[in-house]
């Protein structure tokens, strides 16, 4: 870790020893175009150099943890959508896996591979957003539009699976709501086949671009020990050189079956964060390809969920026409199925880091307590340390490279 050169702020009157600086207070946010969400930074500036900063959060705090205490499990899925909305399916499935862990449900391999495919697609869309926004904030609009269409293609897959695009509410406890249609497979195959060309084009525009490198290298660095002390996870921690990835450290959803590299950086600066995310997109594409190959090799083409009828919503056709099905539907939706007493913690590698769900159940229809470990909340604490001594432009890039999503930060 290179020691950062800090300019000498202290301009003193040599005779009387007075501080000659004229400081400005600048409100960066809550409605600044570069905050990409609603949070405030009160910067103390000397010219353009940031001396101090204080953050205010909570502008879109919706008390998800408290709301969850009054909601049956299926209704909590919709809350998870609204945390990191750039990769909503990972949140949905993380929550479903937590409940499955509590209920002790084992999933068939096919279902898990299907989940892996969708989670990796979500990771790609998350990283696409973050990396293009870094470019956008550095002033390069074109790369942003080059790869944003891939996010659109991924959203089309979501739409085909569950009908929604952003807040997906995708999947069910124990698997999926229905088997993937042929169109879904076709679209996924097309993405895996065609995206590398687009991604390469994007990398050509930025990765070795002199201006972009000058802007991002040594911009908002954080040493590994400080990152660990803050509780960093995910790409932001890996950019500091720590190879912690939940998919490898504590495999869930059959991630142990896949062969992939965990990319790491060195300095933990904006360029490293950018490159780690860039590399992870390639790895995600490879994981999706592997999962498709594994699914193709399976003779089973129909299983889409575990055998847990008490969590399976009956088809609408039956709900409308048969009384048993209607009762069953009502009981599931209202949370009248049996739930064991217990507490579980489950974490997934979200688009942004370790997304954890700590669920305490007292056997009632709703959680007794649910804590959401939201990586963005943790990253944002480190923001002042990362930008102090830098320039205003650095602060903007650092914020976009941390990929702080207001919805997840405030929950």
């Amino acid at each position, binding site marked *: 870790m290179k020691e950062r050169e800090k300019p000498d702020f202290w301009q003193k009157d040599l005779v009387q020893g007075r501080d000659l600086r004229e400081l400005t207070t600048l409100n960066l946010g809550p409605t600044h175009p570069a905050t990409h969400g609603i949070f405030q930074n009160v910067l103390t500036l000397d010219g353009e150099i940031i001396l101090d900063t204080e953050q205010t959060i909570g502008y879109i705090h919706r008390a998800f943890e408290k709301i969850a205490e009054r909601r049956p499990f299926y209704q909590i899925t919709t809350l998870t959508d609204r945390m990191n909305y750039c990769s909503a399916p990972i949140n949905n499935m993380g929550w479903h896996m937590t409940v499955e862990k509590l209920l002790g449900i084992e999933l068939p391999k096919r279902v898990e591979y299907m989940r892996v495919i969708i989670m990796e697609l979500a990771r790609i869309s998350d990283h696409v957003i973050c990396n293009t926004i870094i470019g956008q904030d550095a002033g390069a609009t074109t790369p942003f539009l080059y790869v944003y269409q891939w996010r659109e293609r991924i959203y089309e897959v979501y739409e085909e699976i569950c009908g929604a695009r952003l807040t997906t509410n995708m999947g069910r406890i124990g698997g999926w709501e229905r088997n993937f249609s042929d169109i879904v497979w076709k679209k996924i195959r097309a993405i895996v086949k065609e995206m590398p060309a687009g991604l390469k084009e994007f990398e050509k525009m930025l990765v070795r671009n002199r201006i972009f490198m*000058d802007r991002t290298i040594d911009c908002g660095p954080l040493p590994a020990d400080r990152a660990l002390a803050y509780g960093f996870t995910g790409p932001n921690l890996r950019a500091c050189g720590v190879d912690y990835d939940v998919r490898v450290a504590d495999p869930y959803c059959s991630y142990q079956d896949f062969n992939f590299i965990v990319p790491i950086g060195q300095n933990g600066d904006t360029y490293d964060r950018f490159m780690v995310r860039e590399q992870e997109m390639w790895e995600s594409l490879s994981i999706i390809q592997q999962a498709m190959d594994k699914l193709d090799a399976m003779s089973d083409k129909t299983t889409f969920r575990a055998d847990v009828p008490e969590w399976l919503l009956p088809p609408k056709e039956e709900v409308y026409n048969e009384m048993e099905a209607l009762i069953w539907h009502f009981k599931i939706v209202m949370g009248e199925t049996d739930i064991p007493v217990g507490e579980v913690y489950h974490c997934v590698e979200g688009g942004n880091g370790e997304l954890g769900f700590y669920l305490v159940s007292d056997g009632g229809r709703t959680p007794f307590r649910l804590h959401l470990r939201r990586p963005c909340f943790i990253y944002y604490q480190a923001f002042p340390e990362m930008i102090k001594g830098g320039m205003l432009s650095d602060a903007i890039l650092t914020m976009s490279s941390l990929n702080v999503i207001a919805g997840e930060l405030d929950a």
Partner: protein
Amino acid sequence: MIATAIFLLVLFVITLSVAAYSTYGERKVAAFLQDRIGPNRAGPFGILQPLADGTKMFMKEDFVPLHANKKLFLLGPAIAMITALLTGVVIPWGGTLTVFGTTINLQGADPEIGILYVFAMVSIGVYGIMLGGWASNNKFALLGAVRAASQMVSYELGMGLSIVALVMLTGTLSLSGIVDYQIAHGWGIIQQPLGFLLFLVCAFAETNRAPFDMPECETELVGGYHTEFSSMRLGFYLFAEYTNMFISSAVITTLYFGGYHVPGLASLGLDPNVAAIIGVAAMFAKTFFFIFFFMWVRWSVPRFRFDQLMNLGWKKLIPLGILNILLTGGIHYLFNH
């Protein structure tokens, strides 16, 4: 006299419409570079878009913030616009045209110090930005104005040095004189490749175009110096930027690409009027190419950070400019003595 007045009026209209259509062009070029379609709703291919934009600008409320310095706030956009429009007067757009026995010189005015006039106008133009940003009483606008002022001052030096070498070569400060020299001795780009490069980079900075658009970069400073401006006052700032881009392209063409000169045209023995018109067309074609180049660069590269911009200006461009002067002087001495 009347001929000159008419010519100036025509020039004025052309400058304004080129600036207006540069906004349309910019959006189409951006769309072309980004796999998009661009404006296509107002009229066929969206060619009425600038009119729609202008109308919208005029219809908006003309808002002056309560704590702004009202006089300066109103003066800012006016200065920016006026200086941008005045620069075009000294540029030789073509040779001479003879209509009904009257000879019209296709250059509004040909002062001996044409280049200095261009510089003076550009320098005054920065007051428009500075006053506007400072008078808004907004911190983002102030930061933008400060950036603009220091950027302009720094890059004017580099630009001036690159011109000095050219002037040493041509021996005149008059723009038509420089064009005449290029017609006789070959284009400036061939004789001053390094100078051209320096001038081009500085021109980007002087017009506040990406990658030097620090004064108004929306991701850091919201709108930079024009954050508080609305209605046609904002329109004037944006318009002034496009006008500056047009004029800069014309100046680049004049100084380094032979202005209205078309190689080999004189040997064809055409009617002088036809030749002059072809010359004007060539001038505009070269200018439009540079306008396109400005846009091409804007949509291809990220922007610098402010200190990096200063480093580039002071530590790289100015030494290179001095080197260029020494080289030019040395070569000139060796060959001509």
